[in-house]
């Protein structure tokens, strides 16, 4: 039946799938751009169906909604390419950890792309909140190749940032890339410079069991290069 999975695009687009099928189809979607495009387009049509059942919400609901949002902060953006890869690729960790010793410093001038934690202040969420979380964990590793990396994480906030210090400059066209480890599967978690302060870890660092950093080509990749692992952290049980 798995050859048949594309046929589920319509049912998936209108939530006419059970939990198992949803999980199965989302795994498929991660690697099937055609299905993703089809789902997106079918949802455009489905959204119009609501037009035919349009009904004014009670006026007091507006007040309730607007007063509630004052207490909720909008999430910071995911970077689209990383988000796609988070769905796109999952692989096993052990080879990566085994290869850690093989890390080689690559000289040259860095021209990496990275995303510091610089959300507009109006979102209201700050690194300070993370640092003040009751369950905050701060983990640091000195790197064989020089420099250090620190992970600051709060499982309860499902949030983490990474700071790097004096890590080897990478040659042009290379970047450091973060990965969160979920049940032995690494998920892309953003790109980082070798000397960066408080870079947000993408995805769900709260539920991850660890974090790894690798050297990849600029823009990041979908699967980690196991021969270019710089450091790997195991998160303490929370």
């Amino acid at each position: 039946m798995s050859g048949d999975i594309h046929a589920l695009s319509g049912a998936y687009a209108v939530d006419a799938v059970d939990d198992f099928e949803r999980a199965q189809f989302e795994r498929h979607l991660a690697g099937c751009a055609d299905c993703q495009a089809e789902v997106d387009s079918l949802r455009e049509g489905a959204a119009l169906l609501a037009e035919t059942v349009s009904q004014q919400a009670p006026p007091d609901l507006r007040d309730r909604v607007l007063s509630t949002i004052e207490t909720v902060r909008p999430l910071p953006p995911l970077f689209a390419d990383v988000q796609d890869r988070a769905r796109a690729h999952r692989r096993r960790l052990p080879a990566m950890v085994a290869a850690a010793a093989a890390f080689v410093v690559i000289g040259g001038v860095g021209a990496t792309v990275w995303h510091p934690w610089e959300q507009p202040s109006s979102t209201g969420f700050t690194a300070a909140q993370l640092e003040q979380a009751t369950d905050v964990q701060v983990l640091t590793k000195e790197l064989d190749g020089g420099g250090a990396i620190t992970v600051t994480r709060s499982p309860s906030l499902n949030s983490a940032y990474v700071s790097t210090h004096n890590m080897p400059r990478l040659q042009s066209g290379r970047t450091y890339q973060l990965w969160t480890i979920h049940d032995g599967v690494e998920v892309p978690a953003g790109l980082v410079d070798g000397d960066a302060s408080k870079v947000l870890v993408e995805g769900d660092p709260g539920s991850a069991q660890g974090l790894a950093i690798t050297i990849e080509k600029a823009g990041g990749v979908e699967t980690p290069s196991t021969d270019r692992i710089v450091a790997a952290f195991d998160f303490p049980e929370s």
Partner: protein
Amino acid sequence: MSQAKRTSSGTPLAGVPAASAADRLADLLRRSARGDQAAFAELYDATQARVHGLAVRVVRDPAQAEEVTQEAFLEVWRTSSRFDADKGSALSWLMTICHRKSVDRVRSAEASTRRDTTYHQQNHTIDIDTTADAAQSSMEAQRVRKAMASLTDVQREALELAYFGGYTHTEVAGILELPVGTAKTRIRDGLIRLRDKMGVGS
């Protein structure tokens, strides 16, 4: 590039050309992501009737529908930064959230009354026109009805049971007495025709 294509085919709001209405919703979402509550209030006003109407239609119970509407808008506010205009319109993104919330609600245990066998047996064909009492008879709604009328009966029934009934394709197959595995094809075929008739999403 694809963004321009998408926005030009969005849903018009009353008296506003389609492209600018879709652009406006996308812009309001972007501003919401930056914490702009006034922009969010405007987004709420522009979309509440559709969101609430869908919640009522799927969930049926008015009190629960209000909760779903509220949850959906909170989710929209919270995740507004995740909206990606390259992948689709703001309206589609928003209605997807509302639909999922509605379906989750109706499938949860406390909604079991909705799933009594009487409903299955007697009302398995849903007539959009009679169930949308309070629907605004906007031109857009008429276009949608016309597009739906162009579907085959089984495509339309399957799609309505899935979208408005909140049933899984397997349940739809059971209700319509279709061989298991064929309802999903009918739903997909129906959605493709609806999409193409409405000229969206491509």
